[in-house]
């Protein structure tokens, strides 16, 4: 049946090429919608993806990364004293007016306060610039900050809130959903920028465990140590929490979910049209096969094989084009649209599903193939 399907497809090259382009577009469409669907939760994970931690201590009022609530520093100190813990860092979040934006604007800057000696941030550029971060009233600026902040040259002095700060350098982590611009400050500088905040109000407490310690087991012990008003996430639980937040608590899930759903239906329509056109054109031949004794099952297998061949041939170039488009979207929208193995598997599954549904639909026409009618 494979060779018959192959021959049908290669009989009229122009027509098959058209079918392939159609399949290619249908699969590409699903890739794009799926990429956008996951881009938002992935954007929400940006900071976590760039932090070194096994467990995260947060307030029990934690909503999502940019709205984490706060807990007293003492809770983190207790956790740090535990023998399983290698490091426990306090991260502070604040928002202040950047009084040096383009065209006189004062955009809001998201400031992360961190002990410069900690190794909590993964990007090497941050560790390399520890000396700059340690200087008083000096910040490192995320180079993904929007152009509304004006020039971000090292050495520039800008009023941030009520205090003059110096840009000590740059790093690139991405702004995610933290705001239009993000900067790092030492805990001491942060305290001077936000005098009302006191070091007792910690927003995130990333915890690094000693090698070989099981995070889930350690989480249970540390939860008891940290006490009421706090909670501890493992990395996996945190990823689940953030994804659930973005897909169920905001409009994101519905907006991109509906786009994804419609794109799959459009894909089915495209593949169905391709397969049914092929079947209709070969109707006399199929009827002849029937007349000489081939059963419905054999014809169905031929049609199914045809669909599969078209899907397979359309999938590979669509994957390449999608990877290229993802990069383009990432550059243009700053959304982390990235190709993952999960995406590839999901779209391949969707494409095979589209092929199966459209083959089933086209078979309806085939079953009516009556040798007596055709001639």
């Amino acid at each position, binding site marked *: 049946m494979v060779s018959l399907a192959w021959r049908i497809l290669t009989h009229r090259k122009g027509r098959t090429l058209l079918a392939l382009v159609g399949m290619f577009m249908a699969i590409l*469409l699903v890739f794009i919608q799926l990429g956008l669907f996951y881009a938002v939760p992935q954007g929400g994970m940006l900071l976590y993806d760039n932090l070194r931690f096994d467990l995260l201590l947060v307030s029990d009022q934690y909503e999502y990364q940019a709205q984490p609530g706060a807990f007293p520093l003492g809770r983190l100190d207790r956790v740090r004293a535990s023998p399983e813990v290698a490091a426990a860092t306090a991260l502070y979040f604040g928002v202040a007016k950047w*009084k040096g934006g383009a065209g006189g604007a004062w955009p809001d800057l998201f400031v992360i306060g961190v002990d410069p000696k900690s190794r909590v941030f993964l990007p090497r550029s941050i560790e390399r610039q520890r000396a700059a971060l340690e200087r008083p009233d000096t910040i490192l600026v995320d180079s993904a900050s929007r152009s509304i902040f004006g020039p971000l040259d090292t050495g520039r002095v800008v009023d941030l809130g009520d205090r003059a700060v110096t840009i000590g350098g740059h790093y690139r982590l991405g702004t995610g959903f933290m705001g239009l611009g993000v900067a790092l400050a030492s805990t001491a500088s942060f305290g001077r920028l936000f005098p009302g905040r006191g070091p007792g109000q910690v927003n995130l407490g990333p915890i690094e465990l000693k090698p070989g310690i099981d995070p889930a087991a350690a989480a249970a012990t540390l939860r008891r140590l940290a006490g009421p008003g706090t909670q501890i996430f493992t990395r996996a639980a945190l990823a689940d929490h953030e994804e659930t937040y973005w897909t169920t608590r905001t409009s994101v899930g519905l907006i991109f979910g509906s786009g994804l759903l419609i794109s799959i239906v459009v894909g089915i329509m495209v593949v169905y049209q391709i397969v049914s056109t092929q079947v209709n054109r070969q109707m006399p031949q199929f009827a002849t096969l029937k007349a000489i004794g081939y059963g419905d099952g054999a014809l169905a297998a031929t049609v199914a094989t045809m669909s599969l061949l078209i899907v397979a041939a359309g999938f590979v170039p669509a994957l390449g084009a999608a990877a290229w488009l993802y990069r383009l979207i990432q550059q243009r929208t*700053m959304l982390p649209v990235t190709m993952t193995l999960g995406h590839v598997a999901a779209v391949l599954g969707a494409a095979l599903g589209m092929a199966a549904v459209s083959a089933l639909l086209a078979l309806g026409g085939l079953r009516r193939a009556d040798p007596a009618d055709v001639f």
Partner: protein
Amino acid sequence: MSIATSLPGRAALHPVPLAWRNLTANKRRLLRSSGGIGFAVLLMLMQLGFERAFFDSSLMVIRGLDGDLFVQSAHKYQFATQDPFPAAELDAARQIPGVASARPFYADWFDMFWKNPADGKIFLIRAFAFDPDQPVFSFAQINAERGRLKSPDTVLVDRRGRPFLGMDRTAGQSQLNGVTVKIVGNFALGPDFMSDGTVVMSARTFADVLHGAAGNPPGIEAGVIKLAPGADPARVQAALKKTLPVGLSVMTKDQLIAFERKFQAEVSSAGPIFAIGTVVGFVVGMLISYQITYTDVADQLPQYATLKAIGYPTLFLLRVVLEQAALNGLAGWVPAWLASILLFRVIGELALLPMRMSLGITLLSLGLTLGMCLISAAIAVRRVVAADPAEVF
């Protein structure tokens, strides 16, 4: 009925609405082709609807402010950001001829934490405030209940706020920043892409909740100015600019809307995302439509060749194919448009977004549909032009 018969002169040559007949000859095929085009159109309609809802939701509050001119900090880069100034600055504005009233509008997007009265969880919300004797909104529900805000620590809540805030329930009271507030009414506004829900209160309650009863009076985010009848907005605007300190800007409502729209378009990712979705829908629709026309032309090639042989000019055949493509497009667009009205309603309610079918979306989607069908038909029609009667038989 057909476009062809409406043209005098040609009518004698082809009284038969050929495109229509071709289209309706095979009902199954029509269903298949209109289904394919229809879903591609639906994809475009949804993306256009989301884009519009995104901008509309971010402009809803500005549109709901009942004023002709607006005073706000000149350093603001978007409306929904904190940059307050003293309410006393408006005193000077009231002295300017042509100004009927200048009312303070208080707002906060970053420091107001609402306690869900049902489960006790705390969420950041946005808060708006005004003097109950000097209303600033044109929302009827807020204005109808503003009198009740005169008692201290009372609020109106947004019953279209996201469900997890618990604002939709009939709770008698809750807490804002730890201050117990009485819920004395509600209104339907809905979230935007920044805030999940809204609380409206008097300026006095606003100050209590933000700074405590003994704290300093908070600054205002905007001055809402109404003009006296017959006053020239441009002249009053110029006079206000001259009188008010340089740190304040004065905008008409249209300017304020344009200011916010520009920010959303430049800074947020929503514009390009939905544009990508629309373009992809267009390209896929073009492909589906090409496939339809190509197959159809291939199937009808002997008939077209026959028409050519008996003397119909190529131009006529061309027009039949294009007419048929346009009809195919319409056959997909009409059900898709109807379905999208229903989908807009359902998704609008579920996602709490202002999804509405507009004349703009209707015309744009119709234009895109006809565009994709005609372009692809024009590419596919080359075969008819080349059809040689002698070769076909």
